């Protein structure tokens, strides 16, 4: 005998109501991060020792802007999911857990907006 309603069985999303979304998003962003971080590493190494104008031009070139915006989006989403698991594993008091989860969302959102804004500003300036 199952206590699950027919509707919840059909939806198959479990008690957290989002099924395997958390797991799947972590994998999708993990795969995306590999090439994007490699591109970013290349950009950073290419910028070493160069004056500001040259670095700004490199960071603002269309292909770099596109890659960096994608990287920041994928990276911060991956960060939020990963830190959420750490918080849920170690912070057991309900109030502190919710506070940590909120801080996690705010921090990663701020990082995402700040990074994407900086890159877009460089892109539209050059």
């Amino acid at each position: 005998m199952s206590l699950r309603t027919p509707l919840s069985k059909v939806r198959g999303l479990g008690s957290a109501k989002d099924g395997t979304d958390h797991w799947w998003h972590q994998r999708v962003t993990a795969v995306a991060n590999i090439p994007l971080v490699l591109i970013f590493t290349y950009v950073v190494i290419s910028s070493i020792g160069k004056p500001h104008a040259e670095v700004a031009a490199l960071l603002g070139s269309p292909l770099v802007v596109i890659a960096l915006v994608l990287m920041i989006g994928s990276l911060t989403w991956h960060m939020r999911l990963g830190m959420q698991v750490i918080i849920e594993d170690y912070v057991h008091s309900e109030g502190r857990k919710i506070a940590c989860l909120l801080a996690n969302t705010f921090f990663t959102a701020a990082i995402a907006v700040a990074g994407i804004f900086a890159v877009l500003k460089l892109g539209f300036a050059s």
Partner: protein
Amino acid sequence: MTNSDIPRERPLSPHLQVYSPMLTMMMSIVHRITGAALYFGTVLIIWWLIAAASGPSHFELANAVLSSWIGLLVLLGYTWAAIHHMLGGIKHLFWDMGRGFELNTVELNARLTLAGSVVLTILVWVIAYGVS
């Protein structure tokens, strides 16, 4: 869902302290630690991008801090953490496909991840040094 109102006298399952350390276990722990370190380290990356977007004076300041010996040390650690986390993550993707669960493969992968992270970190920094 955990309920903090329930008294803490319930028996607990064995945790880390009862096991002798193994390489695979250490790699799993390090994967989480590098993940958390990378999480907070993004502040540096974003600061560098904002500095570049703000203009020459802010950019010079960021470069001066990041190329000081402590800045370089942090970046070196950050590079290693990123590569280690990436190699560990690729291993996880293979596990997700149901591959690489044989004991000797798991052990070999742990050694390769550790060695590979050190070798690739050195490689990236040698290339970076060659560029500068």
